[in-house]
C-alpha cells in the first residue's frame, strides 16, 4: 500500500516536473522567437532602426520582471502557482493582441515636432511590447524560484528552447507573414498554460484554468479577425501601395523569406534614374521597382531594346566602360538590373553579377528576363548568390580576373541618412575589402565606385583613405598615381587601377567629362586651375576656387592624411574588418564644429547614428537603473547580509555584461563567415542559447567545488576568444572556399564552443546566491537584466569605436573577474567559517 502510494506520489512529482519543464520550454521558445519575428516585422513596416530597439525592449521587460518580483516577493511566494498562471495568461494575451493594438495607435512620425501627444503614443507603443517580455520574464523567473532544486535543469531547458526559438522563424518566415507568425506565438503560451494547469495544486487550479480558458478564447477570436499592417508613410512601399489603390501601379510580385519581404511594382509614372546627367533629354523608361522590406533596392528597366536605356549613358557609372574596351565585368552587390543594362550597352565581353541575397538573385533573374529581355545565367551573364567578400575569396582561389569591377551597393543607399546606416556592418567597404577586390583585377583593370554627393564630403573621403591604405598594403608606394575622381551634379565616381594610370587613359578620361556634364576632381598630376570654373559648383574650402572633393583627394593621396582625418568634421579614418562600419562617420570633435558653425540646424548634418546609440544607451540606463535600485532597497534582500547582496550584484552584473558583449559583437563578427545577416542572427542566437543551455544542464549534475568549475570555464573562454582573435583572420581564406552549409556549421561550432562554458555561469551564480538566501534570486535576475540592457548599446558603441577585439577581451575579463570573485569569496568565507567554528 505504502509503495503504491509512494509510486503515485513519485508519478505526481514526475508529472509536475515534466509539466513545469514544458511550460519553461514554451516560454523560452516564444521569448526568443518573438524577438526575431518582431525584428522582422519592424524591418518590414517601420524604419530599420526601430528593429534595433527590440532587443533593448525585451531585455528591459525581462529585467523589470526581476524587480517587480522582488517587490512582490512575499505576495508571490504565498501563491506562486496562481501568479505564474496569471502571468502566463497575460503573456499569451499580449502576444496575441499587441501588434493590432500598437498598429491602431495614430502615430505619425512626421508630426512629432508639432504634436506632443505623439510622444505619448510612442510611449504606449513601446510599453505594450515591453509588457510581453515583462510577463514572459516574470513567469520564467518565478518557475525557477519555485523549483529551486531543478533550477539548473529548468534554466538549461529555457536556454535550449530559446535556441530553437531563434531557429524556428528561419523556416516559418518562408511561408508565414511576420505579423501572423508573431500572433501565432501565443499558441506556445496556450500550450505552456495547459501544462501549467497540470502542475498547479488544487487550491489555485480552478482560477488558473479560468485564466487559461479566457486567454484561449481571445486567441481564437483574434485568429479569425482580419488584420493587415500598413507600411510606414516614409517607405516607398507606402507610396506604391497607395498608387496601387488608386489604380496607378500594379504589384507584379510578392515573395517572402526570413531575410525579407520582397515586392515588385510596375508604376509607369514613378521614375528612378541613378545619377543621370543633365544632358539626358528624355525621362527614364518605364520600370519595375524592386523593394525589400518596403525600401527601394533597385529597378529593372522595361525595355525591348538596349537603345531604350540610352539615358544610362549620361551617368558617371558609364565612364569606366568608356575607358576599358569590351571588358569582362564584375558587378558586386547589384540590387537591380540597371548596371547590367549599362554593361551590355557598352559591349561587355561577360558580366558576372554578385547578389548577396539569394531571394533577390532569384527575383532579379526572373524579372530581368521578363522585362529587359536578358537571360541571366547563360554563358555571357552569370549571376552568383554569395556575400561579395566570400565571392572575392573564392574568385581569388579560382584565379578569376575581371577588367572592370563595380561596387553597386553604394548607389542604392540613401546619400544623407543622418547616420541611420551607421551600425550596419559592411565587409566590402573596408581596407581588406578594397584590397581583395583589387587583387582580382586584370592588369589593365579598373575598380569603380559611385556615390551621391555630400556636403561637406564624407563617403568620398573615407573611400579615398580606404583606397590609399589598401594600395599601400599591396605594396604600392605612390597611390596617387592609381586614382581617378570625377563628379556630376549628383554623384562622384572613384576609379582605382591595379597599375598606375597611363597618360593615354588619363586623356581619354578628361575628354569624356565635358560631354557628360562632369568635372574632374583628381587624376595623377592634376592642375585644377585648368578645369575651373566648375560646371557643377559645390562647397569649397574657404576662399578657394576648387571644391572640397579636389582638396580632400589631393591631401589624402599626395600627403600624410593624418591631420585631415583628425580634423575633419566626420570620422573618415579607414575602417577594417575588425571595425567594419563604413557608414559610421560620427565624430565628437566634428559635432562640436558643426554645431558651432551651423547652430541647431547643423544637427541634421552631424551623422548622428553613433550618438543615437549613445543617447539610447543613456535613456535605457536611466530607465533601467530603478530596476536595480528597487531590488537592492526593497524586498527580502535588504534584510540579509550585505556580503551576499554585493556578491549577487557584482557577479551578475559581470556575467550580464560579458554575455551581451559577446552576443552583440558576434552578430557582426560571424557575418564574415556566414555571409547573411539574418542567418548570422539565427546562428548566434541558436548556437549561444543552445550551448549555454547544455552547459547549464551539466551544472545540474555537479555537486560541489562550483567555484573551481567556473574558474576553469573562465580560463577556457578567455583562451578560446584569444584564439579567435589571432587565428580566425588567417583561416578566412580556406573557410571561404567551403560550401555554405559547412560555413554555417563552422560558425555554429565557433559560437557553441565558448557558449557551452558561458552557460555554466548563470546557474552556478544562482546556486551560490541561494546559499545566502532565496530572496537574493530576484536581485540576481535584476542585476543580470540591468547589465544586459546597458550592455547591448554599449557593445554596439565599443565595436563601432574600437572594433571587435576590445569586446572579446572585455568579455573575457568580465568572466574571469566573476570567476575569481566567486573563488576568493568562497575561500574567504570558508576561512571565516573555519575561524568561527570551535
Amino acid at each position, binding site marked *: 500500500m505504502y509503495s503504491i502510494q509512494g509510486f503515485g506520489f513519485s508519478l505526481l512529482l514526475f508529472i509536475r516536473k515534466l509539466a513545469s519543464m514544458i511550460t519553461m520550454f514554451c516560454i523560452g521558445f516564444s521569448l526568443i522567437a518573438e524577438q526575431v519575428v518582431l525584428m522582422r516585422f519592424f524591418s518590414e513596416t517601420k524604419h530599420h532602426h526601430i528593429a534595433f530597439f527590440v532587443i533593448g525592449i525585451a531585455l528591459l521587460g525581462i529585467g523589470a520582471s526581476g524587480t517587480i518580483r522582488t517587490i512582490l516577493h512575499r505576495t508571490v511566494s504565498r501563491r506562486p502557482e496562481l501568479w505564474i498562471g496569471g502571468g502566463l495568461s497575460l503573456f499569451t494575451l499580449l502576444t496575441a493582441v499587441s501588434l493590432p493594438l500598437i498598429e491602431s495607435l495614430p502615430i505619425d512620425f512626421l508630426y512629432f515636432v508639432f504634436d506632443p501627444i505623439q510622444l505619448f503614443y510612442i510611449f504606449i507603443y513601446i510599453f505594450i511590447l515591453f509588457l510581453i517580455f515583462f510577463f514572459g520574464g516574470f513567469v520564467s523567473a518565478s518557475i525557477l524560484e519555485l523549483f529551486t532544486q531543478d533550477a539548473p535543469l529548468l534554466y538549461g531547458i529555457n536556454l535550449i528552447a530559446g535556441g530553437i526559438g531563434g531557429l524556428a522563424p528561419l523556416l516559418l518566415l518562408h511561408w508565414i507573414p511576420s505579423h501572423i507568425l508573431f500572433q501565432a506565438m501565443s499558441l506556445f503560451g496556450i500550450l505552456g498554460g495547459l501544462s501549467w494547469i497540470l502542475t498547479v495544486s488544487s487550491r489555485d487550479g480552478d482560477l488558473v484554468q479560468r485564466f487559461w480558458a479566457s486567454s484561449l478564447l481571445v486567441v481564437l477570436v483574434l485568429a479569425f479577425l482580419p488584420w493587415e499592417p500598413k507600411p510606414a508613410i516614409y517607405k516607398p512601399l507606402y*507610396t506604391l501601395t497607395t498608387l496601387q489603390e488608386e489604380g496607378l501601379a500594379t504589384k507584379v510580385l510578392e515573395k517572402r523569406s526570413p531575410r525579407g519581404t520582397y515586392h515588385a511594382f510596375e508604376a509607369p509614372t514613378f521614375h528612378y534614374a541613378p545619377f543621370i546627367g*543633365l544632358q539626358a533629354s528624355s525621362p527614364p523608361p518605364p520600370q519595375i521597382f524592386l523593394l525589400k522590406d518596403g525600401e527601394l533596392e533597385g529597378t529593372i528597366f522595361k525595355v525591348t531594346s538596349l537603345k531604350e536605356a540610352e539615358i544610362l549613358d549620361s551617368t558617371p557609372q558609364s565612364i569606366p566602360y568608356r575607358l576599358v574596351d569590351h571588358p569582362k565585368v564584375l558587378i558586386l552587390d547589384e540590387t537591380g538590373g540597371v548596371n547590367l543594362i549599362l554593361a551590355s550597352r557598352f559591349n561587355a565581353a561577360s558580366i558576372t553579377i554578385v547578389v548577396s541575397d539569394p531571394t533577390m538573385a532569384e527575383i532579379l533573374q526572373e524579372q530581368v528576363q521578363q522585362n529587359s529581355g536578358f537571360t541571366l545565367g547563360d554563358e555571357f551573364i552569370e549571376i552568383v548568390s554569395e556575400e561579395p567578400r566570400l565571392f572575392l575569396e573564392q574568385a581569388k582561389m579560382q584565379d578569376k580576373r575581371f577588367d572592370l569591377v563595380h561596387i553597386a551597393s553604394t548607389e542604392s543607399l540613401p546619400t*544623407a541618412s543622418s547616420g541611420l546606416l551607421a551600425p550596419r556592418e559592411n565587409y566590402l567597404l573596408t581596407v581588406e575589402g578594397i584590397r581583395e577586390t583589387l587583387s582580382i583585377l586584370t592588369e589593365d583593370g579598373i575598380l569603380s565606385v559611385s556615390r551621391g554627393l555630400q556636403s561637406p564630403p564624407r563617403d568620398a573621403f573615407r573611400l579615398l583613405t580606404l583606397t590609399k591604405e589598401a594600395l599601400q598594403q599591396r605594396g604600392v608606394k605612390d597611390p596617387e598615381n592609381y586614382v581617378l575622381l570625377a563628379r556630376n*551634379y549628383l554623384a562622384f565616381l572613384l576609379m582605382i587601377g591595379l597599375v598606375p594610370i597611363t597618360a593615354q587613359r588619363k586623356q581619354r578620361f578628361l575628354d569624356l567629362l565635358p560631354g557628360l556634364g562632369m568635372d574632374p576632381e583628381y587624376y595623377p598630376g592634376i592642375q585644377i586651375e585648368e578645369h575651373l570654373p566648375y560646371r557643377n*559648383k559645390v562647397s569649397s574650402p574657404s576662399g578657394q576656387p576648387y571644391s572640397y572633393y579636389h582638396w580632400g583627394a589631393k591631401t589624402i593621396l599626395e600627403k600624410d592624411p593624418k591631420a585631415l582625418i583628425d580634423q575633419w568634421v566626420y570620422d573618415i579614418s579607414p575602417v577594417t574588418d575588425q571595425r567594419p562600419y563604413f557608414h559610421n562617420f560620427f565624430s565628437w570633435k566634428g559635432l562640436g564644429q558643426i554645431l558651432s558653425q551651423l547652430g541647431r540646424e547643423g544637427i541634421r548634418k552631424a551623422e548622428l547614428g553613433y550618438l543615437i546609440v549613445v543617447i539610447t544607451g543613456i535613456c535605457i540606463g536611466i530607465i533601467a537603473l*530603478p530596476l536595480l*535600485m528597487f531590488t537592492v532597497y526593497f524586498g527580502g534582500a535588504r534584510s540579509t547580509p550585505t556580503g551576499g547582496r554585493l556578491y549577487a550584484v557584482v557577479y551578475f552584473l559581470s556575467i550580464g555584461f560579458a554575455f551581451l558583449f559577446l552576443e552583440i559583437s558576434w552578430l557582426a563578427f560571424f557575418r564574415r563567415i556566414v555571409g547573411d545577416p539574418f542567418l548570422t542572427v539565427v546562428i548566434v542566437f541558436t548556437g549561444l542559447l543552445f550551448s549555454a543551455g547544455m552547459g547549464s544542464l551539466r551544472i545540474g549534475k555537479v555537486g560541489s567545488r562550483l567555484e573551481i568549475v567556473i574558474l576553469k570555464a573562465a580560463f577556457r573562454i578567455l583562451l578560446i576568444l584569444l584564439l579567435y582573435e589571432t587565428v580566425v583572420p588567417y583561416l578566412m581564406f580556406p573557410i571561404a572556399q567551403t560550401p555554405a552549409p559547412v560555413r554555417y556549421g563552422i560558425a555554429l561550432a565557433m559560437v557553441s564552443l565558448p557558449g557551452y562554458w558561458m552557460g555554466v555561469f548563470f546557474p552556478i551564480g544562482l546556486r551560490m546566491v541561494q546559499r545566502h538566501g532565496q530572496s537574493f534570486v530576484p536581485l540576481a535576475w535584476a542585476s543580470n537584466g540591468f547589465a544586459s540592457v546597458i550592455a547591448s548599446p554599449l557593445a554596439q558603441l565599443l565595436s563601432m569605436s574600437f572594433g571587435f577585439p576590445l569586446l572579446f577581451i572585455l568579455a573575457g575579463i568580465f568572466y574571469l573577474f566573476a570567476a575569481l570573485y566567486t573563488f576568493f569569496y568562497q575561500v574567504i568565507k570558508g576561512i571565516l567559517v573555519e575561524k568561527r567554528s570551535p
Partner: protein
Amino acid sequence: MKRTVCLFYRVPQLRFALLLSLWILLSGLLFGWGKKETPKTLDGEEVFTRDRERMVVTQIEARGVRDPIVLSALRKVPRHRFVPKSLEERAYDDTPLPIGYGQTISQPYIVAYMTEALQLKGTEKVLEIGTGSGYQAAILAEITPHVYTIEIIPELADRARKTLNEAGYRFVKTRQGDGYFGWEEESPFDAIIVTAAAGHVPPPLLSQLKAGGKLIIPLGGPYEVQMLTLVEKMQDGTFRTNQLLPVRFVPFVRKAESSQ
C-alpha cells in the same frame, strides 16, 4: 549637520528616496519636462501683420535675404491664410508646418531664399512644381503676374486654388497633375521652382526652361537632408549647377497626370 547627513545616508529608505529623486530629476532634464510654451493671444489681422513684419525682419533679413522685391512680397502675403486653422497661431514661426496629406508649408526663410535665388525682375514666366498650400505661388504672384503652379494631390490642389482665389491671386494658373512632366503647353519658362525633394532634375523641366533661365530644386532622397540646387541653362543649351543650401523637403509625390 554632518551627523544629520550621515544619518540621512545611513537609513536605506532615505537613501533610496534620495537616489530616486536624483533619478527623476535626471530623467526630467533628459526628457525635457517642465518646458512651457508661452501662450499667444490673437488679436485679429493686426497681430498677424505684426507677426509677419517680425518674421521678415528676424527670420528673413537677418539671415541675409536682401532682394527688396522678395521682402516686399513676404510682407504682403498673409501666410496665416495658407496654413490649417489649428496652426494659424504658428503661421509666422520659423518652421515648416504640416498642411495634411503628408505635405508641409515650407519655412518662411526657405521660401524667401528660393525666390531670391531665381533673381526675378517682375515680368518673368514662372512655373512652380508642388503647389502645396499655395503660399509660394502667392509670393511669386506678388512679384510677377505669370505664375503657373502644379500640384499632384487633388485635395491639396483644390484647397490651394480656393485659398489663392480668396487671397486675391486669381490670376495664378493652377493645375492638378504630375509635375515631373512640367507644363509643356505653356513652356518655355524663365524660371522653374520645385518645392518637393527629387532624386534628379526631371529632363522635361530642363527642356521647358528658356536659355538663360534658372531652375531651383531640392535634390536628394525623400525624408533625407537634400541639397537645394540652382540649375542655369546657358545660351548654348548646356547647364551649370550650384549647390546652395542643405534643406529638408517632403518627397516629390508621383502620380498620373490629370489636368484641370
